[in-house]
């Protein structure tokens, strides 16, 4: 028998094994193990929801007490259903501690009733147990819960870095796939009445060692390529690689790479200062095999922006030898690369990227000095109890009325952030700030923004332990 089995909802915590109000009947319940989801759509974790069935006696000193206890169960499942459908603020969760287990306070959010639930739509008959001097009714609860059991979160914080430096955080070793919430802090909004001046930013994550930032101007060779100083616009390391012409290549040599993997995602900070659109393709080579990404259009007369080329993949598991950026245009174009990023996404459950679209603020909002933070919720961590949707929340606005407020941001990509080990690395990448021409996000003092990252990991359990 379990040591703990409770349901928590707005009315409090219902102890299903207290023997006074509820008692699970013998063999009345055992946890169901969740399978993997078939769908590739994120936001709810990689494991499917499961249906739980608990048969229990609902007890009370009077028939009225029994009915009140049944009503509490029904209300809890009602709230769970309404929460999942989006019209109730707080989640309902099942908490379970197996006897002799080491994982404490495991919980799983309940998403609502399952077919056959007897807390609603059935006739309840009260029985009087004269030996125990108690009234009771026996019913079977059936509900849907998240597939994974979660523990309370643990956190780790990275050092403060200047973008596009990699942020690293060390967590205690725990190998099962576990969701992570992220808070990026340190944005110096200063006191001016400024909205967040980057129209978009990127959060990129992988395991420790799965990220690499490579300066554009560190190329090994190419055709139509040159190095151009652009410290005025805060180019990383002060310079960019420039392609000029209608056809050419910038290539990066074999000694450049520290990241290896079967699938590598490539992002780059680029701009086009010419009047003609240009086409750019990233092409990787491993032991003679070339693999290309799809081609990206870099439109004419554009300010710096982060572009995601997608992935290249290698079945032979070798180290990347070369990476080329191939350029073409119908008329001469000028495309600059400040830096590019290599991400090992071989295990897509622990690596990825999300583009954050900063269009969700009120133009009358202002920033408080140093108070801005970006909070990324994968949708299946403990945060799901308050908002069961993957999301990016920006906090620290000083609204026109003076109160601190926050606003959910737009996002492109599923921030299904998780780890399998103890290391977590990430990048916060943004252009713009005080000028749209800036390669890196600058604050009101015209200084490249420094940020840190706090990882809040919720250990997950497929089977309670």
């Amino acid at each position, binding site marked *: 028998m379990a040591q703990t089995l409770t349901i928590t909802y707005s009315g409090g915590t219902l102890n299903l094994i207290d023997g006074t109000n509820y008692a699970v009947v013998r063999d009345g319940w055992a946890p169901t193990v969740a399978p993997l989801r078939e769908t*590739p759509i994120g936001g709810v974790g990689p494991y499917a929801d499961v249906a739980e069935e608990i048969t229990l006696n609902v007890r009370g000193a009077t028939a009225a007490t029994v009915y009140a206890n049944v009503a509490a169960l029904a209300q809890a499942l009602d709230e769970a259903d309404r929460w999942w*459908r989006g019209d109730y603020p707080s989640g309902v969760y099942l908490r379970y501690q197996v006897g002799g287990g080491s994982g404490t306070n495991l919980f799983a959010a309940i998403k609502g009733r399952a077919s056959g639930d007897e807390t609603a739509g059935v006739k309840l008959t009260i029985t009087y147990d004269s030996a125990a001097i108690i009234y009771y009714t026996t019913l079977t609860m059936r509900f849907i819960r998240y597939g994974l059991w979660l523990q309370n979160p643990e956190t780790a914080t990275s050092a403060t870095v200047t973008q596009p430096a990699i942020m690293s955080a060390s967590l205690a070793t725990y190998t099962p796939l576990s969701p992570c919430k992220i808070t990026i802090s340190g944005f110096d909004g200063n006191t001016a009445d400024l909205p967040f001046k980057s129209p978009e930013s990127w959060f990129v994550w992988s395991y420790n060692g799965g990220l690499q930032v490579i300066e554009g101007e560190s190329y090994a060779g190419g055709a139509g390529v040159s190095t151009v100083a652009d410290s005025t616009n805060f180019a990383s390391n002060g310079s960019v690689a420039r392609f000029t012409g209608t056809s050419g290549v910038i290539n990066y040599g074999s000694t450049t790479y520290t990241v290896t993997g079967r699938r590598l995602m490539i992002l780059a900070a680029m701009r086009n200062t010419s009047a003609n659109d240009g086409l750019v393709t990233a092409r990787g080579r491993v032991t003679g095999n070339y693999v290309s990404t799809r081609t990206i259009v870099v439109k004419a007369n554009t300010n710096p922006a982060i572009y995601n080329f997608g992935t290249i993949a290698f079945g032979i598991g070798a180290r990347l030898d070369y990476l080329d950026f191939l350029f073409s245009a*119908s008329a001469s174009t000028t495309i600059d690369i400040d830096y590019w990023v290599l991400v090992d996404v071989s295990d897509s459950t622990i690596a990825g990227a999300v583009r954050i679209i900063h269009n969700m603020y009120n133009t009358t909002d202002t920033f408080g000095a140093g108070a801005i933070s970006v909070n990324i919720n994968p949708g299946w961590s403990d945060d799901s109890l308050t908002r069961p949707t*993957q999301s990016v929340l920006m906090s620290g606005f000083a609204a026109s009325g003076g109160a601190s407020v926050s606003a959910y941001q737009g*996002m*492109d*990509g599923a921030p299904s952030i998780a780890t399998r080990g103890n290391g977590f690395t990430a990048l916060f990448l943004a252009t713009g700030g005080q000028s749209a021409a800036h390669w890196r996000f600058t604050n009101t003092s015209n200084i490249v923004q420094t940020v840190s990252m706090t990882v809040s990991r919720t250990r997950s359990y497929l089977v309670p332990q």
Partner: protein
Amino acid sequence: MLQLALSSSYGGAFLADISRHVTGGSFSTNVHGFADLAVTLDLNPMDAYAYFTLPGPLWIKLSESGLPIWEGRVEDVTTRLDGTLDLRAFGAWRAMSDLPYTALWSTTTVDGWRAAVATDPGQSGAVAENRFSIDTNGGRLYIAPQKNNSYTATAQGRMIYFLPSNGSRGAVTFSASATVLLPTGWLAAVYAYTAAGVLVTTVWSLTGNGSTQTATISGTFSSADILVLALLWNGGGTTTYANENGDFYVKLTGIRIKTTTSASVYADEIAKAFVSFVNGVNSSQISSSTALISSPSNDLTDISYADANPADELAKLANLGDNQTPPNIYEVGAWEDQVLYFRKRGSAGRTWYIDVRALTLQRSMDGLYTSAYATYQDASGRTLRTTTSSDTSAGVSITRRQAVSAGTTTSATLAGVIRDTSLNDTKNPQPRATIGFDAVYDSTGATWPLYYVRAGDTLVIRNFPAVIGPSTPDRLRSFRLSRTSFDLKTGALSVEPETALPSLDVLVARLAAGL
């Protein structure tokens, strides 16, 4: 993992992440890019109604790490009392069907030329009806004075041509070969007018000298909507023509009117104009970028649109082929970021390798042609036929010949290209196949998520012997895909080869665990 999100428009305000609400759905791609996406969402009724009543069209995007897997505009919205919401969206190619397009690009025929009358715009006070012989016989423009009629400078013989009413483009070049046999004092001329009848310019003129004169007309001028060929007495006062009918005349042959100053009208210029036209009206629906439009380098001599659907017309242009030997068919459509592509078919496609676990393969002669000729027309509208071209490289021992329509072109060269394009595409046997596979690999052997497979990509069966294949894809061991469909709930992929035939041509893959 993938994300499904709604925005107010492409690049517009982010509205909602709807990933967790998806209870079922699928997306498809076809030869024109992203085809459609249909999903059912489980929402509370108020949210469902809110989405239902939002002004549209909303933009829906399925993305992986910010990279579009599918995106398009939501056109069909259905909601129910229980809060379920069905959304159906179509890719950016759909925008090319939003607006009818009218414009002349080039014409070399005499269709549309007629005798001018005084009520035509700009012709009042200039035309003498019924005093001239006027015809378009044999693809010529011909005007001749008639015996015993009197003529003044305002009693002219005129032929008139109207560009499509309220079209997007005006004529800017006129070329022809002129033969002029006129007495002294007579003048032949070509004039350009606006739609309102205001003279733009005199494109060309030549005064008679009693002898046969020839000239090559090549005029470039400001945009005009009306062209006129005129024959007039320019010697002052009144003259009476005493010669026999047909003794003197002006005759134009080999005429060409263009609405571009480009020496030739290539399909890429038209495609770019379509993009500009649609983007100019619906800037949020198609990108202004023409970076993915390339030229087939075939001069389109006769191309005119009246209330035409740009999507349909682009598809026709893509099928005309290019000037290579053998000609390549083009593809047109739009993938991510609403950028229209018009390029050699398959040039941007990826090649995927599969190991079949179930196979039924049937070869058919349906659709197989080893020989072809094209039909086209001369300037007067007479149907002409090219010589026959044959290709038996696939080893078929009989001749199966196809008559290919080259439309209204008067160009024997273009007709030949269209013939060869068709022959090149139909000379190999067409397979019917049902193939089952579990995963797709790239050339290095790496497995890829099945949702990366798109129409236009090539699928190679790598555990099937290369028994035939003069070209890639050979359509037996390898297929170019014309359609893919991915089930968002189960992760299953269905694909169709480009030579989709009525019976079997569906390949089905099942998402392998972990992909």
